[in-house]
């Protein structure tokens, strides 16, 4: 077994991308996306189906090449990651489908041999906790079981960066809670950086320290979750004659005009600063938003 060269852990940065643009044919999937994730962050990526979440993840990991812009993991260009860095990444794709013909036990053993830090004990414990027999072939598993095996495989590496694309989509509520607790334990005990996409807003609200909201191929919200209800709000404006809704409002993220002429806006402010003047105009109503409202208001 060869010695592992640790990736550069002096940098505080786990992931960075600059002006990532990606098209599939004539369709734009990502438009000049910038993102910087410091180590130890639990980042939740939300967005509607087709918003570009999977493409962003795959580009960050170097599994897909951007048309423009660059991505880095632990300071290395994503498209040319060293083996040492690759070994520190655990990734669970949305639909794990590799090694279909293998038995679970054989697959995990085969994969484990490529990782010096592989935690075989964790694998055995997890398989029995989730009641999955190592003798079964991967092709025979249900989507939920398949997802669990992929999670075990990713976690057994003891990754410094764990990337999960819709990890809970096929899991029942009990398995989902197990997974969330496992993620929290990794973050608390090892300072693992976790990057996960989901549209289960309540999961994200529990475990994320930061949320990034992808909409219309770009990042529309990037905020510390604890501050979200202080930094984001909904403004409801009556129809004229106030006139305040005529021009864009500072910090405006989205706007929706109703049939009666009234307007609903989502606005953001920096932590500790004031809401824009328009929020205090007569007839204007400002209310706090929690994540689910924000998601629906912006994505509608």
């Amino acid at each position, binding site marked *: 077994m060869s010695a592992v060269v640790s990736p550069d852990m002096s940098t505080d940065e786990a992931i960075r991308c600059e002006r990532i643009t990606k098209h599939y044919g004539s369709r734009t999937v990502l438009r000049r996306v910038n993102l910087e994730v410091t180590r130890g962050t639990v980042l939740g990526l939300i967005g509607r189906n087709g918003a570009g979440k999977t493409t962003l993840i795959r580009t960050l990991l170097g599994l897909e090449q951007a048309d423009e812009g660059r991505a880095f993991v632990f300071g290395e260009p994503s498209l040319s990651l060293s083996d040492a860095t690759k070994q520190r990444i655990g990734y669970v794709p949305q639909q794990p489908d590799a090694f279909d013909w293998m038995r679970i036990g054989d697959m995990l053993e085969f994969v484990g041999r490529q990782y010096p830090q592989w935690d075989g004990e964790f694998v055995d414990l997890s398989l029995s906790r989730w009641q999955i027999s190592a003798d079964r072939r991967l092709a025979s598993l249900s989507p939920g079981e398949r997802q669990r095996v992929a999670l075990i495989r990713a976690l057994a590496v003891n990754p410094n960066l764990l990337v999960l694309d819709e990890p809970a989509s096929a899991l029942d509520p009990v398995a989902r809670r197990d997974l969330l607790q496992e993620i929290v*334990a990794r973050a*608390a*005990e090892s300072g693992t950086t976790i990057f996960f996409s989901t549209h289960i807003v*309540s999961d994200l609200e529990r*475990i994320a320290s930061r949320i990034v909201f992808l909409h219309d191929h770009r990042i529309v919200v990037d905020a510390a*979750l604890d501050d979200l209800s202080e930094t984001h709000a909904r403004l409801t404006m009556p129809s004229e004659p106030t006139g305040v809704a005529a021009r864009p409002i500072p910090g405006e993220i989205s706007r929706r005009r109703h049939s009666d002429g009234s307007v609903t806006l989502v606005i953001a402010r920096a932590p500790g600063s004031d809401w824009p003047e328009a929020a205090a105009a007569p007839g204007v109503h400002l209310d706090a938003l*929690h994540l689910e409202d924000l998601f629906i208001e912006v994505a509608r």
Partner: protein
Amino acid sequence: MKADRLTILPGATEPIYRQIGSQLRRLIASGQLPPGEELPSVRDVAIQHAVNPMTVSRAYCQLEAEGLLTRLRGKGMVVARGAHAVVSPEQRLARLQSQLADIARQARELDIPARLVVQRLKSLLEDSE
């Protein structure tokens, strides 16, 4: 104190760190968490409730800054010696004033007779006993 004593509601407008902080303040004010009582570790609360550890530690730090909690070496967080219970029930009730006023206002908007609101509140209070 055990970690499962806390109730955490994702989806509420109140951020989770504030939910934790205000529950602890109430339990300290009522004397249910007396001075010297050990709090569960950040890790225990985080894993038990599947919430981000930084969220828990933010709540603890805030209460520490308010003088309600003290960090003891080797023991973690305990309720501070100076954190006395708020003696009279009236004083403790004052802490619910804004929530009660809000319920009253909403009940008027919904045109619900006071008797029904009081009845429901009473049964909710008795349920959890």
